[in-house]
Each structure stands twice: as C-alpha cells, then as structure tokens.
C-alpha cells in the first residue's frame, strides 16, 4: 500500500518517465531513466560538466572519472564514497551538502545503491543517442490500432491500467482536424458532407481536402514565425518598421508547396549560400534576419554584434537541436556536455555577416534584395542588363572626356564657375551671417526683407564668416513658402548639429496643430530629410537621408522635392553628394498649403532646433545635382580656378573633373540621363514591389572570440566555426559556413534534428510535445513521455524525405488523435495533463485562431494570401503609450475595409507593443525565439473575447447572416445556422432552452432600450443590414457573442 502510494506521488510530482518508476528490486535500472534525473538535480551542479563550478575536481557525469576518484566502485556500493556521503550524518561530509538545500529521499538513495550494485552502467543522455526503430509493442486491443502511433500510445496506457477514450463523434472530429490543419473551423458544408459520407475513406478524404487548402500553409507558418521571431519592427529603441513580410509569405508558400523539411532547413539557414541562389532561396535566408536590432545613439557596435550572433545561435539550437545553448554564453553548460568554447564556435557560423550592427532606423537595412511584383519580374530582369550597359557607357565617357576637360580647364576662370551656379535668384535667400544684433536681412520673392531675430537666437562662427545659433524659432516670414503639393522646390543651407538622438525642423512652413500640414526640412539623429504633408501620417511623405551628418561640423545640406507627391521625387544631398534615402512615409494626395508662417529653427509649435544655420535658400524648382554641388563647393572651386593654370593639375584637377562632367560635358550628360531614366524605371518597379532582408557572408574567414562571462569586451581565445563534440562530427567535405552547418544538421546520424522537429509538430496538434520542453532536450529537461514513439516518428519523417504533410497525415489519422476528449475521474488522477494521451487533445486555441475562427464563422474573413502587414481593430493608445515621439510606429492608424478582416498572421507586429488582444491570449512578443506558447486562463482574456470590437462586429455579422438566411421568426433555424458555424454541431434540447432564455431576456432589454440596440449595431466598420429589426438584431448579436465565448468555441 505504501509503495503504491509512493508510486502515485512520484508520478504526479516528477517528470513523466518513459515507464513507471522501478520499484521491483530485481528490475534492471537504466541510467537515463532512473539515475540521471537524480544526479542531474542533486549532484551535477557541482560535479558535472561545468568545469568552473566543479567542486573537489570530482565529476559524476563521467563514469571513468567517478570510478577513478573512488566515488563509485561498480558492483560495490559499500566501497563507493558516493554511498557513504549520501548517508553521512556529518554536515561536513554529507552530500548534497546542507547549504545546497537539496535532499535525496530514501527511495532515491536505494536506487543509487542498486544501480552501483548492478555495475553502475552509464548511458549518454537519451537525446544524443540516435533514434532507433523499436519493435512495435504488443497491445491489449488490436482493433483500436489504426497506425503504429497507436501501438506506442496504447502500450503505455495498458501499463498504466487506462483505456483510451472512444472515438470522437464526426462533428467534433471534423472541427478538430479542420482547426488543426487549417487554423479555421470547417465550412458547414464540409461537415455535412463528412457526416453523410458512409464510405470507409470519408475521414481520409476530409483530411486530404484540408491538407490541400492554402489555409494549411498559413496555419503552419504561424507556428514557424514564433520560432523565427518574425516581426514588422526592429525591436529596440525607435522600434521602427522593418519591411520583411516577403519572408513571412515565403514560409507560407513553402508549407503550401510541402517543401521537404531538409530543403526548408537549408534555405532558412543558408539560402543565400546555395550555388546560383534564386531570389526565393535568398528570401528564405531571412530567418537569420528576424532578430531584434538597434540603432540607439550611444551603443558600442561590438556589444550588439555579439548579441546578434548569440541570438542566432540560441534560436538555431532551440529550433533544430532542442538545446539551450544560452547557458554556455558565460560558462560551460552545467547539465549538457557543451562547453563555453563550443558555444562561440557555433557563434562563428553566424558571425560573418555584412549586415551593419545599426539598423539605421530604416525599413530596409542592408543586405536586402528587391522583390518585384510577379508581373514586373521579366522587365526587372531585363533592366539589370540595360542598366549595366548604360552605366558602362557613362564610365566610358568618363574616361574619354579628359581631353576635353583639360582644354576647358586651361581656359577656365572663376567666371566660368558662375555659369554652373543656379542662374536664377533663389525664391528665398537668408544669409543669416550678420554676426551681431537682432536683425537679419534677406530676399523673398525678389523683395528685400528684414527679419527680427528671436531673443533665443545667437551668433557663432560659421563655415565662412558668422552664422546663426538657434534655439527654437529664430525668425519667421508670414508669407514665404506657402507651396501647393505640386510645387517643386529645393531647399539648401549650411547647418551644424551636435551629437544627440534629437530631432528638429531646420525650417518649416508647417502647422503641427493641424495634422502637420505643410512642409519642413527635418533632422533626426543628424539625418536630414523632409516631410511634405497634408495630414500626418495617412496623407504625407517623409524621406530621410540614411547617413548621419558629422556632429559639430558645418555641413551643406540640400533637399529637393519635384512636386509629384511621391517619395521618389525627393533627393537629399550632404556637401553636394547625393545621399541614399529611406522612405518612411509615401502617400500624399491632399493640399499642403497652410496659414501658419514660415519659420527658421522649428515648426509652427514644436520640434525646435538647437544648432547652427546660415545661407538658407529655397528655389522654386528642382536644382540639378551639379548646381547643388556647385553651391556646396563654390568656395573650394573658386579657390582652384584662382590658381595659375599650371597648378591646376593632379588631385586639384580631379576635384573638379566630376563636377565639370556633370555640368559642361554634353555627351556625358546625355549618357547620364539615359542611365537615370533606366534607374528611375527600376526604382518604380522596386517601389511597387517589396524587399527581402537576406543574409550575406563577409569575405573574411568566419570566426568569433570566446568571451569571458559573455562580455563583449572580455575577449579570450579566437575560435572558428565548429560543432559541439557531443554531436556527430562535422564532415570534412562540408564547407564551414552556414550552408555546411545546415547540411550537418540533416545528417543521417544526427540524433536531434528530426526528433525536435516532429516533437514540435506533435505539440501543434496535441498541445504538449512528447518532450514537454520543446526547446530543451537536454539533461535538465523532462524526459519524453513516449520515447519510442518519438523515435519512430522521427525516423518516419526523415526517411520519407522530410515530408511534412505526410507526417501530419499520419498523426491525424491515428486513433490516438481521433479520441474523444472525455476525461474520466481515473484519468484526471492518473493522467491529469493528458501526457499519456488517454483522451483526445482539447485545449484553448491560440490567440490567432480565436480571432480567425470568429471572422471565418461570421463570413468576414478574406481569403487573400500574403502581402503587406495589416492593422485591424485595436484599442486606441496601445502604441502611443510607449513609443518614442520619433518612432515611425508610434501611431497605430487602423486600416479600413478588407484589411480589417485578414488572418491574424498578417497583423502588423510591433515588438514593443504587439497586437493587444494577441498578447493577452499568450502570443509571444516575437522578441526572441519561442517554440512553445504559454496557455493561461485569465479574466483579461475573457474581457478580450467579450468586448473586442472585432469580435462584437463578427457576432453581429454572424447573427445578421443567420437571420437573413432563416428569416427573423425562425429562432431554431437561426440558432442552428450559428451553432453549425461555431461548433460544427447543433445545440441540444437543454442548451436550446438556456439559449432561448437568454434571447428572450436580451430582446426584452433592447426593446426597453432601443437606443442601446442602435449603439450596439454601430460597433465595427461594416454596416448592419437596414432591413432587419434593429432590436432583434441587437439581441441576436449579443446572443452570438455569448455563444462565441463558449468554452467549447474557444477550445479546439
């Protein structure tokens, strides 16, 4: 009696062992099952793999060492120091020592003694022994078995004295398998077809139909994107947008095409390194670009370079190897045979990217590739060659024109230069170089103006002479700069900024109190660009130079806008050199005219500039590059042309050459124009399409440094790419880069990859993996509940050619999967968490499924696959409450129309504030790899499903469709309509009674308060049907809301 009670306690409190605890003294003990858990929990922290924390130089994880040190004398417990120590009463001798606060039970001590008696045989950790096909076990009920999965499951249930549950009814099963394979409830017609199909193959047919649905790929992709930590923002600091949804779509397509998992692995980890990598393969390599990045001003790059590589190692090892390598960042792993050096050898594989540490706060951090629309692909490919030829022609002229140049140079005077400067007077010209006093002079539209300078303004030395020092608005002009959207302009000035993350307007005619209407010349983090805005952010442009200007240096900046209401029409120049730009907003349509005055040093109200400004000019046209260069360099060029002809040679002449070509050489100008036209065409195609963040290897050999305590500036030994010794050796013939690494993961002798992968897929269906800790198959983790089953699945999967659909088919075809979820009293005691699979899988759906199911049932869900991320309903203020002012993901501007009703995996994922309802329902933040979601049951979740605008609207739509389909009087018919869509079944008599009571009360409530009914029908963007009685529709809406909150609806 006592013994069996102890057995139950063990079962409930320790991780599930592969079989019941060995209580029979004669039974053979097995190291991995019986001994390792005891040693791992109690002894390994001080006598294990981590050399740094090892005490008394004793390790018990290594048999040879333990025997040599006398801790274990195989066969002779009485001569084993270990046995003496665990029984000692002397607190100085007792193990584990009192201060460790770890205690061995008498039973554990007995087990250790018997194991030493039996010879103290060790085994490598189970997951490091390659899987083998166990013989299929005998079971008590052959008839129950549908495929080998069931044998393993039933054998275990037999051992526990449990019986599997009966098969679920067809409706339940149809709903379950549809949710599991597509993430959506089944179409009612599909259910009826299945229920009415009496053939032996009815379920097969259903499964095949679901597997061929494009919804399959979306649903599988969602799980993968958690592991890949995919998101739509960079994650740190500004947390600006990152445009990489092409990777998300690539994952969807890969699952829909049933890409074998080995190929999927290679393309994720090393698509870019494949010979002649296709665009698609390169997009796949985006897996390693999904990590969080920063652009915080004060960072030291190396620190973050180390963090990025670390994140990539941790992600890769969790996803493919089920190893928590993160421990080895700072020290040797305490439980698994992974030492710190090996961690950095792994890091070396990922440490060799051309990606800059700072993401630049732009959506297209290098390396990226353009991903044109499918219809643009042919022209895109052709353009590559045409541009190459045009560029060659330009270069050719650059070589041959030297003769003409020297001829010109010999004759040129400073007056020749004047021809290059803009020939027209600027529309606005403010020298701001008076150097004293509170009055500035300038010219606006041909009229001289006097400016009274603000008290906060001062003077400082400028690039030549004096310059203004602003602190907010230095001066204003009532009329100037009142441009229309189609008015081209160029603004140039000398500026000087100090180092900071700040932002400000250099000059502006902008009403920041009225949707920021107007235009400005903008600086943020010492990048310079412009806003041209009707109403921010839904109707406006923002384009910024990608580079920063130097801190505390005078810089000539120029920004031109061509009046085309397009970001492509904005150019930015620093010191006469055209800059690469990043487009942060590109939708302008309305007018930009505004009443507020033109100001130097701020917008109308805010964004005050602290810095130096002078020679501010505005032209009412687009200046050419050469004109801008001549404005920026006129002083220098004048110096050169003032030299005697004989001295205008060598580097001095070279300084002028490029400028001369662009300004004076007609053949060069023609060829350049041709090149620019082609580039513009290319730019337009690029703009229509999207981009992909890809991996790209740097030229040098990959390496990393072992870091003391993991600190970036504590470099120890340099190491090169290599894989841990506990895993199969890295074949000589494979390259030591990510590609070789990916192929190594897929080797036949690799014990982990297939196991870890099938375990994750199993978890998607059954809620918990065969190994519960899906990202940790190490010694400190729980043992698998059914190791032989896991191994069988792993081998099936690998030997089938890593066929994902086949694996899922096998799993959902099993009798195990098809069980009813009924929990008996016995099962709740012996198998409370269903780890033994004594009943069918039943658990609350993931956040996305809850929302998608409601949209689907209501008929709102769109069926388009892929595309830019969307912003459906979300309570106001979720982003704004936490974002930095300058973040371009500060304001959540809700989408309209169809984009409100797309599947949740398309929801724009801002890492610092993930979609609110998703997060409450346990979606991970996507900051780091997540291979397993938590599943809590909280009041905040109830509030989401009760009150979310999205779900209320869906309830109304479903109610409306039911009433329209059935007529307002047919209560039972409408109820049936709704129930079939939410539950795939009808309500039974008792349920209908409850529901009718609710309905009657709701009708009474809304009849009494018709204003409430109208208010309810206004929720959501879609309109309620006007032909239905609003009171009735309101009551039915809330009834549907009640039903949508059923436990049965929220569970799969």
């Amino acid at each position, binding site marked *: 009696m006592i013994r069996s009670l102890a057995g139950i306690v063990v079962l409930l409190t320790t991780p599930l062992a592969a079989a019941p605890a060995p209580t029979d003294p004669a039974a053979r003990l097995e190291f991995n099952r019986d001994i390792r858990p005891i040693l791992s*929990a109690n002894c390994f922290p001080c006598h294990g793999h981590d050399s740094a924390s090892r005490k008394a130089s004793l390790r018990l994880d290594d048999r040879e060492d333990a025997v040599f040190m006398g801790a274990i004398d195989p066969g002779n417990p009485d001569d084993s120091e270990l046995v003496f120590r665990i029984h000692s009463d002397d607190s100085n001798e007792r193990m584990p020592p009192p201060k460790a606060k770890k205690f061995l039970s008498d039973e554990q001590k007995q087990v250790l003694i018997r194991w030493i008696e039996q010879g103290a045989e060790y085994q490598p950790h189970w997951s490091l022994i390659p899987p083998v096909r166990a013989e299929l076990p005998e079971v008590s009920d052959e008839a129950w078995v549908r495929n080998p999965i069931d044998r393993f499951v039933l054998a275990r249930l037999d051992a526990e004295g449990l019986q599997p549950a009966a098969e679920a009814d067809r409706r339940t099963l149809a709903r379950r398998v549809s949710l599991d394979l597509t993430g959506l409830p089944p179409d009612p017609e599909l259910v009826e077809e299945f229920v009415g199909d009496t053939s032996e193959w009815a379920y097969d047919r259903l499964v095949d139909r679901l597997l061929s649905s494009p919804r399959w790929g979306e649903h599988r992709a969602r799980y993968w994107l958690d592991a890949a930590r995919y998101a739509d923002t960079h994650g740190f600091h500004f947390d600006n947008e990152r445009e990489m949804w092409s990777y998300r779509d690539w994952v969807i397509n890969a699952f829909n095409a049933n890409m074998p998992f080995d190929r999927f692995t290679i393309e994720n980890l090393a698509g870019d390194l494949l010979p002649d990598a296709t665009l698609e393969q390169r997009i796949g390599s985006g897996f390693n670009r999904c990590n969080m990045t920063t652009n915080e001003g004060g960072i030291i790059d190396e620190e973050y370079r180390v963090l990025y590589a670390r994140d990539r190692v941790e992600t890769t090892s969790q996803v493919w190897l089920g190893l928590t390598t993160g421990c080895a960042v700072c020290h040797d792993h305490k439980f698994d045979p992974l030492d710190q050096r090996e961690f950095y050898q792994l890091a070396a594989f990922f440490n060799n990217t051309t990606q800059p540490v700072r993401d630049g706060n732009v959506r297209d951090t290098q390396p990226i590739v353009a991903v044109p629309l499918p219809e643009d692909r042919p022209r895109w490919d052709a353009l590559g060659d045409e541009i190459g030829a045009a560029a060659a022609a330009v270069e050719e002229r650059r070589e041959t024109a030297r003769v003409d140049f020297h001829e010109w140079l010999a004759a040129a005077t400073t007056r020749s230069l004047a021809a290059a400067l803009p020939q027209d007077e600027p529309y606005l010209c403010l020298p701001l170089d008076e150097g004293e006093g509170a009055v500035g002079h300038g010219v606006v539209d041909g009229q001289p103006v006097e400016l009274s300078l603000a008290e906060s303004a001062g003077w400082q030395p400028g690039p030549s002479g004096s310059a203004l020092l602003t602190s907010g608005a230095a001066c204003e002009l009532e009329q100037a700069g009142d441009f229309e959207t189609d008015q081209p302009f160029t603004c140039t000035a000398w500026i000087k900024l*100090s180092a900071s993350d*700040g932002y400000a307007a250099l000059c502006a005619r902008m009403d920041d109190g009225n949707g920021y209407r107007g235009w400005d010349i903008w600086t943020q983090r010492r990048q310079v660009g412009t806003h041209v805005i009707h109403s921010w952010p839904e109707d406006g442009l923002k384009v910024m130079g990608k580079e920063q200007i130097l801190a505390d240096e005078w810089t000539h900046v120029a920004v031109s806008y061509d009046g085309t209401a397009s970001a492509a029409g904005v150019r930015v120049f620093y010191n006469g050199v055209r800059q690469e730009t990043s487009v942060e907003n590109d939708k302008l349509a309305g007018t930009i005219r505004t009443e507020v005055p033109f100001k130097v040093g701020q917008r109308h109200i805010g964004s005050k500039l602290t810095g130096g400004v002078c020679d501010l000019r505005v032209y009412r046209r687009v200046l050419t590059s050469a004109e801008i260069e001549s404005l920026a360099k006129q002083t220098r060029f004048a110096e050169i042309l003032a030299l005697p002809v004989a001295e205008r040679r060598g580097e001095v002449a070279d300084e002028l050459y490029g400028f001369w070509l662009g300004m004076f050489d007609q053949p060069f100008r023609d060829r350049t124009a041709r090149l620019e036209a082609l580039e513009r065409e290319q730019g337009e195609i690029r703009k229509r399409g999207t981009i992909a963040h890809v991996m790209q290897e740097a030229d040098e050999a990959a390496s990393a440094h072992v870091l003391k305590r993991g600190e970036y500036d504590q470099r120890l030994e340099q190491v090169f790419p290599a894989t841990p010794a506990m895993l199969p050796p890295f074949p000589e013939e494979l390259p030591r880069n990510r590609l070789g690494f990916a192929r190594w993961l897929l080797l036949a002798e690799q014990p982990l990859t297939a196991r870890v992968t099938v375990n994750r897929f199993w978890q998607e269906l059954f809620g918990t993996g065969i190994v519960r800790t899906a990202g940790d198959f190490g010694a400190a983790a729980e043992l698998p509940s059914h190791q032989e089953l896991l191994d069988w699945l792993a081998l099936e999967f690998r030997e089938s050619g890593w066929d994902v659909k086949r694996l899922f088919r096998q799993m959902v075809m099993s009798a195990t999967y098809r069980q*009813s979820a009924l929990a008996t009293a016995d099962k709740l005691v012996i198998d409370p968490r269903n780890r033994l699979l004594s009943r069918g899988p039943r658990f609350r759906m993931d956040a996305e499924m809850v929302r998608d199911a409601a949209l689907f049932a209501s008929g709102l869900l769109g069926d388009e696959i892929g595309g830019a991320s969307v912003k459906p309903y979300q309570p106001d203020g979720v982003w704004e*409450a936490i974002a930095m002012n300058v973040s371009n993901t500060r304001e959540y501007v809700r989408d309209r129309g169809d984009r409100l009703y797309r599947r949740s995996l398309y929801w724009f994922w801002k890492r610092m504030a993930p979609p609110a309802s998703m997060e409450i329902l346990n979606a991970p933040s996507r900051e780091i790899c997540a291979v397993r979601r938590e599943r809590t049951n909280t009041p905040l979740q109830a509030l989401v499903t*009760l009150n979310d605008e999205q779900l209320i609207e869906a309830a109304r739509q479903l109610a409306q469709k039911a009433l329209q389909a059935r007529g307002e009087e047919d209560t039972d018919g409408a109820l049936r309509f709704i129930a079939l869509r939410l539950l795939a079944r009808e309500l039974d008599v008792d349920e209908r009674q409850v529901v009718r009571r609710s309905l009657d009360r709701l009708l009474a409530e809304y009849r009494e*308060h018709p204003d409430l009914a109208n208010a309810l029908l206004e*929720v959501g963007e879609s309109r309620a049907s006007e032909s239905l009685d609003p009171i009735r529709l309101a009551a039915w809406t809330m009834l549907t809301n009640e039903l949508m909150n059923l*436990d049965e609806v929220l569970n799969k």
Partner: protein
Amino acid sequence: MSGMISRRDLLARGAGLLGAGLLAPGARGAFLSAPPSFPGQVPPHFPPRVNRIIYLHMVGGPPQMDMYDYKPVMEKYYDADLPESVRMGQRLTTMTSGQERFPIAPSKFSFKRYGESGMWVSELLPQTSRMVDDMLFVRSMYTEAINHEPAISFMQTGNQNTGRPCLGAWMSYGRGSQNENLPTFVVMVARPTNTEQVQAISARLWSSGYLSGEHAATSFRSSGDPILYLNNPPGVSASVRRTTLDGLGELNRMHHDRLRDPETLTRIQQYELAYRMQSSVPELTDLDSEPRSTYTLYGDEAKKPGTFANATLLARRMAERGVRFVQIYHNNWDTHANVAGRLPDQCRDIDRPSYALVQDLKRRGMLDDTLVIWGGEFGRTIYSQGGLSKQNYGRDHHPRCFTMWMAGGGVRAGSIHGETDDFSYNIVKDPVHIRDFHATVLRLMGYDHERFSVNIGGLGQKLTGVVQAHVIEELIA
C-alpha cells in the same frame, strides 16, 4: 541562525506580520472579504517589512547633480576640462566619445539643506525637500549599462538582456495576490508635460519573463479603458452583460458535465472575475470620491488623466485595495541638451506628487509596510554634452553614480547613504550596485535573494543574477 526565523515561526506569527499592513480603514473592507485570486508561491524567508511597493521610475536618467547630489566645488570649474584622473578612461556613449572637450557644467540650480538629516536638495524640488526626514537617499548607486535599453532592463529585471522577470513580477510570484478583483501588479505610464526627448519603453520591462504569465503587469491606461477591453462595448449595459454571462455560465457547466475538463471550470471562474473587475476597476479609478483634501495635497494636476500626479493618486488607491506592486514610469529625463529648459518641467511634474504620495500613505498608516522607490536607470555626466553656457548645458549618460531615494516600509528614514567625488563622477564611499539594491528590496519583501529563485533549465534563476549581491544593511531600519 541569527536573524532568521523558521517557516513554522513565521506561520505562527504570520497573521500579525502579513496582515498588519493590509487592514486599514476605508474602501478596502469589501475587497478583503473574498479570497485572493492566487496565493504567493514562496513563503517569505524573513518577516516581511513591506507588503506592497510603489516604484517611480524616471525614464532617461535624471541628472543627479542638478537634483540631489550637491557639488558646490564645481562652480570654480565652469568650462574647465574634466580631469583625466577623474574620468579614468571610462566608457562613454558614442554620442559624446567623439567630443573634443569635456567641459564641466556646474548645476545652475541652487541648493539648500533640509531636515534633521541636513540633506541638500535642489530648488527644483520644493515639496520633496520638506520630507527629507521620511526619505532614505542613496547617492552611490551604480550600474554598468550605458544605453537606455539595456540600462532600464538592468534596473527592472536584474539583467541587461531582455527576457527576465522584473521586480514586480517577482513580487507577484513570491507574495501573490492580496485581493480578488484587481491585478497584483500594475504599471502606469505617466505623460510628462514636456516631451522633448522621450525614450522608448516597452512591455518587455514589465513582463513576467520565465515566470508564469499571470505575474506580468497589467497596464493601466490613462485614456480609453483603464484596462484593455475592460468596458462593455457601446450598447451593452451591465444587465445585458449579466444576461449573457448567466447563459454562458450555464452552457459551460453543461459542457463540463459532458467532458469534465477542469479548465472549463476555471474558465467559468475567470469570466466571473472579469465581470467583477468591470465594476471594481471603475470604482478604483473614480477619483470623484476623493475629498478635496486629496487635491490640496496632490494638486489639481491629479485630476488630469495621464499625469504623474494622477498616477500617484491612483497608485495610493491601488495600494489601499491590495495591489502588491505599482510601477509608474515618467519619461523625458534624457537631458542630452537643454537641462535648464527642461529640468524645471520634469521636476514640477514629479515634485509635489512624490511628496503627496509619501505623506498620504503616512497619514493613512500605510507607509510602514509600503515601500516607495524613486530613481532612473543611470546618472548623467558633470561635463556638458554639446554647447555649454552659463544659461544652459546638456548632460550625457553616466553609469558610475546616480541617486535614488526610498521611503516607507523598513528603510532607514532620514539618512543619506554613499558619497561621490566633487565631480559627481566616481563613488568614494559605500557603492551600491543595482544587484545590491535588488537584494535589499527583496530582503524588505521578506526574501533572501540567494534563495528566492526558480528552476529554469536546471538552474536556479534569480533577480540578482550570478555575480554576488549584497544586502545593504545600512539601508534597513
């Protein structure tokens, strides 16, 4: 065994120890009649001195020498270069590491001594200065982090990398809930008056990390629903909601009878709890019930949703109702430039409310077991970033010293701990690392930081991390 008590002792005395602070007059009675929504997971190792914490975090890093760390000697050093002997090759942010000079900017604000302790306080904090004898100042805080993201993370979670539970989550995990209708751990993001240089903060700072999700903070918002999705949509009255929940509960019970999944019963309870929150939260946030004297104390700013004053008043109401941990973030302290222009705004936002909060707790008898913490993620440099004039200057991040203060539960009120050099650059006496601060706060919460851990991947993970942390006994009364 000195200073330690056994768990049994604790349980025997428990009612007195744990309950003392809970029971104060007023609105709380109703909330205590029901059992807490979840119990603590770790029995305290010591008699707790603190049953709840209100943590005021100044995002961006306040300039200590303009507020609390008085350095009169600096007057003489105006525009002089920071001596290399002081800087000692220290890591600078890359925002000023390129600067040619490091000219010293003495604080332009005047200081006076206050109270028995004789603490020097800046003119910018006229209210706070009145209560220095209720406060414990630590002028010798330091960290290694030098940029905001890692630094705030370090301060809140004990680790510069993201993904660890924060102090509030540890409190929730260890000590559990002490009310039935409200969250255990609440965060509020107050809106500063001035928004020149607002820094990013994100939910990762109040996440539960590797602790279970219920220990993450619930965010209280200043506009819209105070808790996301709390309010019924338009057209749904309380009685409509009750009707649907009655039907829902009945249907769920029928479903439970069929499948007997215990999670179904839990869900029924959670829906009822949600319903109760729908009334308890509005009651909590309804400030109309506050007497006029409240606003005499906190100021009229406290009536405006989203202000720091409003958040502190709400924090007091939450503390009264058994919320264990309230975290308030106040932003815009990242004074790289324009200290003169901005700091008065910043201080005006927090000065009176901080005073009011401490005094309010005190007069209600709650200060004895409520800990109020004030501080940022690092300090700022004595040298100016960017231009320096007599009128204005900027200051870069400075990890090597900064000032925090605490008041209430178990801290040694009216004392000043630690000292920095004349430049407020290096600590010359009694340094307190973030992990020591954490260890000390945990001690006040009743925990030995060495033993307050959870097993993650086989390792005991704790707030104070792997480097040895020390409880600073001098901070404890």
